[in-house]
């Protein structure tokens, strides 16, 4: 059992609460930096995907997990980021400038998508974001002069100041750096007034207002930031898969992104990366299980949706706090051993009460 004896406010404000945390995250960072030497090329490319989807997860987590605004159209921001970036690069823009511009454009689209959030909430907002997602999807498919329509666009390896990131390892380090930087950005925001304002909006809008929080302003910032981060991920995604088409950014992708952050653990930074790891490793896990299943089931194309859906249902039924929640419980069990009680994480049952007033 560890007791953290606090003597300065700085200990609460800092990112790492005690040396143990610094140690373990440092170890993780070293492991990630050494990965290209230790794992296969295939695993490395999967790690790249995890970094990319992790960044998307961060964006979506900021919006849905921390500000409580459900978004069913997040793939649209990836699309905007990816296409803007690729188009700018093909016009000769340098990589860093192009990705920044792409993220800014995505952020601007985010502000537009966030406009309904200023007037409606809950399911209405979700449908509005879904509507935007469809519209963006259709626009990318029809605006052929710019996006190449359904035939898609080819993407080359990124290059910064003449150095080409051709190998998987190079791309991995690039995406890893972006992932680390974006994570730090989000962590900083969350321990500052802006992040607290987001949480306030999620938990009680009317209270947040009486605390002086301008709802419209902070909801817009949340949407813009979320879209900005997702746009960055979209641009990196384009480089990773080398070929983008509108079909990669459909409503199904948006829904899967939402499921990803929920399975990972809504309302936590870890959740974004756990969720990304889950969604990327799912095909692998299915392949492993195929050996144990009869042929008819194992080779069916419907297996992935079934497992995905089943995991989703199980997560809600058994572990609403997601993978991160389960991880937290396991860690607390060992930290408090033998004093762990099941009631520590018990969620209060809330009976449904309508907010509707005729």
């Amino acid at each position, binding site marked *: 059992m560890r007791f953290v004896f606090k003597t300065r*406010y700085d200990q609460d404000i800092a990112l790492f609460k005690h040396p143990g945390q610094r140690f373990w995250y440092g170890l993780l960072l070293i492991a990630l930096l050494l990965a290209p030497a230790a794992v296969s090329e295939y695993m490395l490319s999967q790690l790249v995907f995890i970094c990319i989807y992790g960044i998307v997860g961060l964006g979506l987590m900021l919006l849905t997990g921390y500000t409580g605004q459900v978004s069913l159209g997040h793939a649209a921001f990836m699309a905007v980021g990816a296409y803007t970036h690729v188009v700018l690069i093909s016009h000769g823009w340098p990589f860093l400038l192009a990705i920044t511009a792409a993220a800014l454009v995505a952020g601007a689209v985010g502000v537009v998508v966030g406009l309904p959030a200023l007037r409606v909430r809950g399911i209405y907002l979700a449908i509005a974001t879904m509507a935007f997602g469809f519209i963006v999807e259709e626009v990318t498919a029809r605006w052929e002069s710019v996006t190449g329509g359904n035939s898609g666009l080819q993407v080359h390896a990124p290059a910064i100041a003449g150095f080409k990131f051709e190998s998987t390892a190079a791309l991995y380090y690039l995406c890893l750096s972006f992932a680390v930087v974006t994570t730090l950005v989000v962590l*900083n925001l969350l321990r*500052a*007034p802006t992040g607290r304002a987001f949480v*306030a909006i999620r938990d009680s809008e009317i209270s947040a207002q*009486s605390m*002086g929080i301008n709802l419209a302003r902070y909801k817009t910032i949340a949407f813009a930031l979320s879209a900005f981060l997702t746009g960055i991920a979209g641009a990196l995604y384009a480089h990773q898969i080398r070929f983008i088409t509108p079909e990669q950014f459909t409503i199904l992708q948006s829904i899967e992104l939402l499921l990803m952050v929920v399975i990972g653990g809504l309302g936590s930074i870890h959740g974004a990366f756990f969720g990304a790891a889950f969604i990327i490793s799912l095909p692998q896990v299915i392949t492993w299980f195929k050996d144990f299943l009869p042929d008819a089931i194992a080779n069916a194309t419907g297996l992935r949706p079934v497992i995905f859906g089943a995991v989703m249902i199980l997560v809600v039924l058994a572990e609403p706090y997601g993978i991160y929640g389960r991880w937290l419980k396991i860690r607390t069990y060992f930290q408090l051993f033998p004093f762990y009680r099941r009631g520590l994480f018990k969620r209060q049952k809330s009976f449904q009460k309508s907010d509707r007033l005729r």
Partner: protein
Amino acid sequence: MSALLCASNLSLSFGGLKAVNDVSFDVQPGEVFTLIGPNGAGKTTVFNLISRIYQPAAGKLTFNGIDLLTVAPHRIAALGVARTFQNIELFEQASVLANLLIGRHTHRATSLWQEVLFTPAAWRAEREFRDRVEQVIDFLDLQHYRDTIVAALPYGVRKVVELARALAIGPRLLLLDEPSSGLNVEETDDMAFWIGDIRNDLGITVLMVEHDMTLVSRVSDRVLAMNQGEVIALGTPAQVQAHPAVIEAYLGTPSSPPLQGEGPGMGMGLHG
């Protein structure tokens, strides 16, 4: 001394129901001013008008000389008006400390960039917020609950956290909506002491809605009695409690003479 809060001829109707009908009153700086009245009298509606959740159909409302009716709801905290809610509206999934820190929001001095990069200026601002919030925690003896998630707290403590959060704003006027509802005798006692301290030590003006007459008599400087949306009496607690219209509103007119040993006084008789 000019009034801190001045309400004149406020009126608001919901459908055909006149929730607030031509209500006027002044709140002087440094006093504890209480609104009383039976349920449905319009007291919380008056609060909601002052905190700008509703817009009155008629009337004027000024705070510190500023016309409140042109101010958006999220701006009254910056002007110095804080309120607690009847049904506690805390941020359930956050710790007590986080709730109080959110209360400091109007004193935010950092820009988005400074926060994203967490510059030394952001560190300083965070330390300062924490310092001020700790003063509130000391004032209300919440040290034990500092890091507890609000959803895990008992009702009585939540009420205190609600009060703490309003104080964290650093207001000039504190609106307390039924501060003692749901509290037992000891907790109500504490609340009475704190309201007194808020007025005496912190110099904050308090406007509250209350049903517990003992508490009202103990802490209030002046009382306004309302019934069915209208003002029926205004004065010191003793004056208002003896006022015939107030007695009628609570007890009704007697159809027979009062029983021996009972009089029209309400000193101990009415608890919410």
